[in-house]
């Protein structure tokens, strides 16, 4: 199963990993949008994290988010509001950022345990709720509590403010994932219908 071999990545896996890292960055630069008459201001960045999980799958989604965080750490302003630099990993949201990596992995695992499987809406929704909210907060809240010195329970209470927006994003991510599966079926085949084969050097080596 491909999900158990992280280091066997095709060229289109590599480029999708890079493009999704850029996508989450671009969704942050798009700025916060408001839903339901400004009642829930949200940035689209965590929506991108969920989509990385549902579309790229567990390993590639997690690698993609790691790529993004590395670029942020080395000083590119790729987080919403143009934030970047190593400092963000010493601030209160550090845990949520690390949660993106684990969250994308869990989402990929729950949404499509097999590579190439078509996404089923309910699975995807559950995956986004569990991975995109559950896992992200599970890592984010304790780290926030550690950084700010506010006790764990109270920090968790404070973070509840963002949960409604995140639930909306999980629903959006589900709708979008299903729509993308229709608009670009190759998204879930792992590669385009037309194949990109390469020289079977490994084959000749092992059979020689």
């Amino acid at each position, binding site marked *: 199963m491909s999900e158990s071999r992280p*280091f*066997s*990545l095709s*060229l*289109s896996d*590599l*480029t999708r990993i*890079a*493009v*999704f*890292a850029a*996508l989450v960055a*671009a*969704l942050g630069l798009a700025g916060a*949008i408001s*839903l339901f008459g400004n009642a829930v201001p949200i940035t689209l960045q965590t929506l991108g994290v969920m989509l990385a999980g549902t*579309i790229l799958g567990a390993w590639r989604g997690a*690698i993609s988010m790691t*790529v*993004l965080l*590395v670029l942020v750490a*080395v*000083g*590119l*302003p*790729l987080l919403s509001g143009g*934030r*970047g*630099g*190593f*400092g*963000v990993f*010493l*601030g*209160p949201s550090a845990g949520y950022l690390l949660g993106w990596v684990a969250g994308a992995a869990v989402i990929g695992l729950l949404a499509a345990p097999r*590579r190439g499987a078509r996404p089923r809406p309910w699975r995807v929704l559950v995956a986004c709720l569990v991975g995109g909210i559950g896992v992200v907060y599970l890592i984010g809240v304790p780290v926030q509590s550690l*950084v*700010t*010195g*506010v*006790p764990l329970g*109270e920090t968790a209470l*404070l973070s509840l403010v963002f949960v409604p927006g995140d639930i909306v994003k999980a629903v*959006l991510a589900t709708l*979008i994932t299903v*729509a*993308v599966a229709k608009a*670009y079926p*190759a998204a879930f085949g792992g*590669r385009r219908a037309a*194949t*990109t*084969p*390469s*020289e*079977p050097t*490994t*084959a*000749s*080596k092992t059979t020689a």
Partner: protein
Amino acid sequence: MAGPLSLYVPGTSPLHRLPASVKLLGLLIGGLVITVPRPEPLLLGVAAAVLVALYLVAGLGLTELARQVWAVRWIIVVVLVGQLLFLPWHVAALTSIRMLLAILLAALVTLTTRASDILEAIERGLGPLRRLGVRTERIALVLGMAIRAVPIVIDLASEARDSQRARGVGGGPTAMVVPLLVGALRHADDVADALAARGMDDDEEPVMLEGSERLRGASRRPPRR
């Protein structure tokens, strides 16, 4: 890697000239010294003085320092409000200051080091992993491609938003994000073709069309299900 996509401030100060790896190590140690012990006024005061001196040595000056503080003002405010609900005020103040100092120290590295230098230092630091079979040059490749992809995806996003507007359809974020994603995936697959055309090996088992069973049979890896 200058331009809008970077936080680096060009300069020739001793801090600018220090190798990236040394600065990263310094950041690690400095960060630990500031954040691990309980926040004491004396420790934080010394740390703040050192930090101000470093900003001056780097030629960034107090205006840049002030700009950095200003940039994180909302984070500090939000954190402080949360703390004041649950903690005594002096503890709240000290933890907030501690966090601010750590962020400013990290910003100092970011401001004085080119992103490409840090990436190079990372690639070199990962070198030993090569012996474990990790293809570190691929890590550098993906990081480079991601940087390259940011402006492209931003263009795709504004294209998607404009065409949504031009057609006068509402539909909220879905109507914008779906075409954006399709465009991004198509772009990724085109880049994969370009990589192959430029001689980059695909280390994945090739999926063959009919008539190529021999290749598949000889493959080292089990066929994909």
